[in-house]
C-alpha cells in the first residue's frame, strides 16, 4: 500500500487535519461496544417474521391459532391488525405511485419473496421461529414480473391495483438545447442499452430493534440501528397516529449502514405495535437471509436509446437517454432516486445539453432504498461508460477524452446545466496523480509481460463525484406537493459542573468516527486536547440534539455535523469569555483567550479561570452574578446550509452543497480461457476538501473501493423468473475477502469547499468510481464494449467469444 500525501493547502496548527486515533476504538476492540442485538430487557419477547415464499400471491387465509397455542408464545400480529391500528405509510410520490397503500405487514397480497406476513413473539428466539412454522397461510400464486423492462407490458401482472399499473413515477429532465447540440455534432454515438445491476453494501450487522412501551406516558423507546431516525419518525408517527415525541430513538454502536439501514420503519412499527399489544419489550433480530431477501436493495437501472453528440476531437456536446429504474415491490424511500441522480446529471464533464426521460416501475423483488452512492452512482457510472464508449468509437485515448471534457479548476465554482453548483476541485490533476500512482507510462510493458504468460491485461479509469449535504427541496421535483426543503444538523456543547466538556450530536454514526472528529473541532476552538472532550456515543432523541434531517447518510457529517459542532463550540467559547469577563470585573471578550483548560486575560496570564471554575460558577455557585449575564454554558446550535427552493418547472437549482471527487484506476489480468480475472493493481485518489482526520478519510476511500470491487465482480441480487432470490446468503452473494484485495495506492489532494464553515466536504460514497474503473478495465482487456456494471467471470468469457 502506497500513499501520496496532499500538498497542504494552508499551514495550520491544531487538531484539525491530524490523524488522531479514534475515541471509539477502545470499546470496540474490547468487545465492549453496544450494538442493538446486545440490548436486553427483563421479560422481553423475541419476534420472528413469517415471510412470503412467493413473489406474488393473494393471501386467501391466515390462521395463527396453532402458533398462539404453543406454550411460551406471547402473541402474534397480522396485516389485518396492522391495517386496523395504523394508517398506510406516507408516500413521497405523487400519482401514480402515491396511490399505493403501504402497511408494515402484507395485507391481502404478497409482492416479493421474503415479505413479512405475520409476526410471532415468544419466550425464546428458537421458539418464536418454531411457532412461526405453525402459522398457516394459504396463498394463491399470481404471475410474476421480475424484469423492469417487462413491467409496463400489457401482459405484466400489476403489483398495486391502487396505482393502476406498475408505473410508479416518470419525469422528463431537459436542459440546454439538444437539437442545436446534435446539429453541431460531427458524430452521434448511440448505445442501445446499459444496465446498472442490483446489489447493496450488506453491512455486516443486519437490522434489529429492542422496543419498550411505557403505558403510563404512552411512549415508545426504540433501541435500533436505524441510521436516519429523523426519517423513520416522520414515517412512523403519522402511520401510528402519534406525535413524534412519542417515539424515542436510541442507538449506540451501529455495525455498518451504507444507507441500507434507513428504511426499517415498517419492521419498527411492528415491534411498537407488539410491545403495546403484549405489554412487554420486543426484541427483533434480522438474520442475514432475511436482510438479503427483504432489505434495501440498491436501485437497478437501465439506460436505453442513449445518443451522444460529439465532435471528432472528442468534445462532448450533450446526450439523450431513457432511464428505467426498478424500485422493487414498494416505495420505501422512492421515488427519490428519480431525482437524486440529478445532483450529478453531467457527471464531471462540461456538456451543456442533457435530456433524461426517467421512468420508475415496480417489480416482484425486494424494495429498493438508499445504498452508498444512492442514485448518483448509477448516473455517474452511466456518464463514465459513455466516455469510454465514445473514446472507443472515436479511437481516442480515454484519458484524453476525460481531460478534454472535465470541468476545469478555473471553472470552479461551476454551475451545471441544471443549476447545481460544483464547489471546487481539480479533476485533471487528480487523474494525473492516479495515473502516476498506477505507473501509467509502464502499462505497455506490463501488457506485454502479462501476454507472455497468456494473460490479457486491462486498465480502466473511473471518475466520480460524491455529492453531499442534500437540499431536500429536490423532492419537490418529483412531487411539488411535498413541503421539504433545505437541510440541518444539530450539536450541543456544554461545560458541566466540574468543567467537563460534553458534546452531543444529532447523528447516528456507523463507523465514521464522529466522536473523534467532533472532539478535534471542539479542541481547536477551546484550545484543549481531544482527550478533554467527551462526545456522547451514539444517538438519543431525548438529548434534544437533533432536527428533522438528523442522521448519518448522504455524505454530510463533515459539513452538517461538524459545522453544528463548530457553531455550538463558538457559542460556548463566547459564553466562557463573557462569564470570565464578568468574574474579572468587566474585562472585554477580546482581551481574553482560552488556553490550558481555562480562560485568561491575554496580557495578564495570572488572571486565569479554569473551565472547572466556569462550570461550577454557572451551575452551582452563581449568587451575585450580574442579572443581565445571559450565559448557560450549554449551547445548542443548528447548522442550516444556504439553500433555495429550485425552479420546479425547469427542474433547475442547487441540489447539494459540496462535491467531493474520487478518481480510481484499476489494472486487471484476464485468463482468456476461462474469463476468470483478478485485480492486480489499484489506485484511488480522493479530494474531499479540508480533511479533519486524514486517516479516517482514507479509511472511507478504502472501504468504498472494496465495495466497488465486490459489486463490479461478484455481488448481485439476482432473481429467477419465479422471483426467487438466487443470492440470499454469503455463499452465493460473494463479498470480497482478504485474499481478494489487490495492492492499493491511495492519494489525496485538498480543494477546500468555499461554501462550508470548515472548508470540508462530505465524503465516503465514492465507490462508483471503482465500479466503473473495473468495467473499463474489462472493456480494455477484452476489447469488447462493456454494457453492464456487473461483470462476473462468465460474462467476461462470453465477451471474449
Amino acid at each position: 500500500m502506497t500513499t501520496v500525501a496532499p500538498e497542504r493547502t494552508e499551514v495550520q496548527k491544531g487538531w484539525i487535519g491530524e490523524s488522531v486515533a479514534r475515541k471509539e476504538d477502545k470499546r470496540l476492540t474490547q468487545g465492549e461496544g453496544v450494538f442493538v442485538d446486545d440490548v436486553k430487557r427483563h421479560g422481553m419477547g423475541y419476534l420472528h417474521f413469517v415471510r412470503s415464499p412467493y413473489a406474488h400471491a393473494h393471501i386467501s387465509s391466515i390462521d395463527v391459532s396453532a402458533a398462539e397455542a404453543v406454550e411460551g408464545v406471547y402473541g402474534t400480529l397480522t396485516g389485518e391488525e396492522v391495517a386496523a391500528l395504523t394508517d398506510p405509510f406516507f408516500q413521497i410520490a405523487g400519482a401514480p405511485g402515491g396511490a399505493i397503500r403501504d402497511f408494515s405487514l402484507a395485507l391481502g397480497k404478497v409482492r416479493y419473496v421474503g415479505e413479512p406476513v405475520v409476526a410471532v413473539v415468544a419466550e425464546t428466539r428458537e421458539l418464536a421461529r418454531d411457532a412461526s412454522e405453525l402459522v398457516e397461510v394459504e396463498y394463491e400464486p399470481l404471475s410474476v414480473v421480475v424484469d423492469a423492462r417487462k413491467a409496463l407490458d400489457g401482459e405484466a401482472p400489476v403489483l398495486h391495483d391502487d396505482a393502476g399499473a406498475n408505473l410508479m413515477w416518470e419525469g422528463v429532465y431537459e436542459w440546454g438545447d439538444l437539437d442545436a447540440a446534435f446539429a453541431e455534432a460531427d458524430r452521434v454515438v448511440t448505445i442501445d442499452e446499459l444496465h446498472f445491476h442490483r446489489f447493496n453494501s450488506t453491512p455486516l450487522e443486519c437490522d434489529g430493534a429492542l422496543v419498550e412501551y411505557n403505558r403510563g406516558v404512552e411512549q415508545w423507546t426504540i433501541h435500533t440501528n436505524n441510521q436516519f431516525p429523523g426519517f423513520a419518525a416522520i414515517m412512523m408517527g403519522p402511520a401510528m397516529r402519534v406525535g413524534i415525541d412519542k417515539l424515542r430513538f436510541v442507538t449506540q454502536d451501529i455495525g455498518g449502514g451504507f444507507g441500507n439501514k434507513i428504511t426499517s420503519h415498517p419492521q419498527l412499527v411492528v415491534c411498537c405495535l407488539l410491545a403495546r399489544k403484549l405489554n412487554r419489550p420486543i426484541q427483533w433480530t434480522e438474520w442475514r437471509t432475511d436482510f438479503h431477501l427483504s432489505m434495501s436493495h440498491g436501485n437497478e437501472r437501465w439506460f436505453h436509446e442513449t445518443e451522444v453528440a460529439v465532435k471528432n476531437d472528442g468534445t462532448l456536446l450533450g446526450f439523450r437517454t431513457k432511464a428505467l429504474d426498478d424500485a422493487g415491490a414498494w416505495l420505501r424511500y422512492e421515488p427519490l432516486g428519480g431525482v437524486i441522480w440529478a445532483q450529478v446529471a453531467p457527471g464531471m464533464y462540461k456538456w451543456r445539453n442533457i435530456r433524461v426521460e426517467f421512468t420508475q416501475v415496480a417489480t416482484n423483488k425486494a424494495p429498493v432504498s438508499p445504498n452508498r452512492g444512492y442514485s448518483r452512482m448509477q448516473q455517474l457510472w452511466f456518464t463514465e461508460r459513455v466516455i469510454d464508449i465514445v473514446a472507443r468509437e472515436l479511437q481516442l485515448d480515454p484519458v484524453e477524452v476525460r481531460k478534454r471534457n472535465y470541468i476545469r479548476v478555473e471553472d470552479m465554482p461551476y454551475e451545471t446545466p441544471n443549476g447545481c453548483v460544483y464547489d471546487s476541485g481539480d479533476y485533471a490533476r487528480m487523474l494525473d496523480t492516479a495515473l502516476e500512482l498506477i505507473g501509467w507510462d509502464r502499462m505497455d510493458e506490463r501488457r506485454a509481460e502479462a501476454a507472455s504468460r497468456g494473460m490479457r491485461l486491462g486498465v480502466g479509469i473511473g471518475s466520480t463525484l460524491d455529492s453531499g449535504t442534500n437540499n431536500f427541496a429536490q423532492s419537490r421535483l418529483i412531487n411539488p406537493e411535498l413541503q421539504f426543503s433545505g437541510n440541518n444538523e444539530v450539536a450541543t456543547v456544554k461545560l458541566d459542573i466540574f468543567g467537563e466538556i460534553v458534546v452531543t450530536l444529532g447523528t447516528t454514526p456507523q463507523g465514521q468516527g464522529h466522536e473523534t472528529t467532533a472532539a478535534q473541532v471542539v479542541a481547536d476552538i477551546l484550545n484543549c486536547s481531544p482527550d478533554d472532550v467527551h462526545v456522547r456515543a451514539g444517538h438519543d432523541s431525548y438529548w434534544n440534539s437533533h432536527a428533522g434531517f438528523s442522521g448519518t447518510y448522504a455524505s454530510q457529517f463533515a459539513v452538517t455535523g461538524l459545522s453544528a459542532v463548530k457553531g455550538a463550540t463558538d457559542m460556548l467559547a463566547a459564553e466562557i469569555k463573557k462569564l470570565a469577563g464578568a468574574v474579572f470585573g468587566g474585562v472585554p471578550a477580546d482581551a481574553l483567550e482560552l488556553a490550558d483548560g481555562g480562560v485568561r486575560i491575554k496580557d495578564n496570564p495570572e488572571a486565569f479561570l479554569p473551565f472547572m471554575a466556569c462550570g461550577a460558577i454557572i451551575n452551582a455557585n452563581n449568587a451575585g452574578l450580574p442579572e443581565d449575564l445571559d450565559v448557560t454554558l450549554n449551547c445548542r446550535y443548528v447548522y442550516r446550509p444556504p439553500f433555495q427552493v429550485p425552479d420546479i418547472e425547469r427542474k433547475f437549482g442547487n441540489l447539494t452543497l459540496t462535491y467531493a471527487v474520487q478518481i480510481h484506476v484499476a489494472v486487471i489480468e484476464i485468463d482468456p480461457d476461462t474469463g476468470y480475472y483478478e485485480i492486480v493493481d489499484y489506485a484511488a485518489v480522493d479530494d474531499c476538501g479540508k480533511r479533519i482526520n486524514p486517516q479516517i478519510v482514507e479509511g472511507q476511500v478504502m472501504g468504498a473501493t472494496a465495495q466497488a470491487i465486490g459489486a463490479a465482480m461478484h455481488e448481485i441480487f439476482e432473481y429467477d423468473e419465479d422471483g426467487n432470490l438466487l443470492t440470499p446468503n454469503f455463499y452465493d452473494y460473494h463479498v470480497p475477502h482478504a485474499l481478494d484485495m489487490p495492492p492499493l495506492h491511495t492519494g489525496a489532494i485538498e480543494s477546500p469547499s468555499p461554501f462550508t464553515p470548515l472548508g470540508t466536504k462530505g465524503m465516503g460514497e465514492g465507490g462508483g468510481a471503482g465500479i466503473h474503473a473495473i468495467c473499463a478495465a474489462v472493456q480494455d482487456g477484452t476489447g469488447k464494449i462493456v454494457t453492464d456494471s456487473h461483470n462476473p467471470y462468465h460474462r467476461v468469457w462470453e465477451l471474449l467469444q
Partner: protein
Amino acid sequence: MLLREVDYAKPASVAEALALLAADDGARALAGGQTLINVMKARAASPDALVDLNGLEELKGVDLGADGTLSIGPMTTYAELVASAEARARPILGEVCSTIADVQVRNRGTIGGNLCSNDPTNHLPPLMAAVGAEMTITGADGSRTVPASDFFLGVYMTAVGPGELLTRIHVPAGRHDGFAAVTLGVDGTCIVNAAATLDGKLRIALGCVDAVPVLVEADSVDDVRDAVRAAHLDPPSDVHASSEYRAHLAGVLAERAARQAVG
C-alpha cells in the same frame, strides 16, 4: 440461525455411534458440522437427532501403509491432513485441503464430512474419484469397501446408508496428480473443479457439473478436451455460471489438472 429441536448424543465408540444411528432413522451423524449445521439453520433439513462423532479417535488419523496406501480417518480435519507428515505421500491431498474455505472451517471441517455431504461444489469428491480412493462403510452387520466411483450417489447422497458410517478412506500410492478450479473470488466456492491422476491413463474427475463427480479418461493431455466433450456434460445453470460456461470450464480445467498431473 435457530435450529429445530434436535436430540444430541456423544457416543464413546464407533459401535455405540452405529447403534444410535440404527435405533433412529431420523438420526444423522455430526462430523465437523460445517455443512450440516448450516443446512439445519436454514431448516432445509432437520434431523431428529445428532450423533456427534467428534472425539472418536478410531475415526481420526492418517496412516501410511507399507505399499504406500494412505488410510485416512474420516474425522480427520482438513487442517490435520494438511499438517500430516504421512499425508505428504500423496501431496495433492494437502494441497487441495489447504484451499478449502478458510482457517476456521479447516480447523473443524472433516474429510469424511466433505465426502458424505457431497455438495456439488465440494473439492474432495472429484479428488477422491480421480485418485481412485476407496471408502470403507461400516454398519450393524459389518463393513464393506466401495470405490469412489460407487460411493457418490447424488447431491448430499452417498453409499453410506441409514445406520451406517464412513469409517475409513483409502488412497492408493501415487504422486502424479493435479487439481484445478475456477472459484468465486480467490479461494471462494468452486464454480467448476477438476482433479486428475496419471496412472497408466489419465483419470479425470469433474466437479460441479452433475450430481456426482463425472469421470473421464484420456491417454494424453492432448486428448483430454475431446474426452470431456465425449462425456456430453449437461451441467446445471445458476447465478454464477450458465450450463454452457460450466461445460466449457470443465474442458479447460480438466486439461489444466491433467497437465499438472503429468507435470
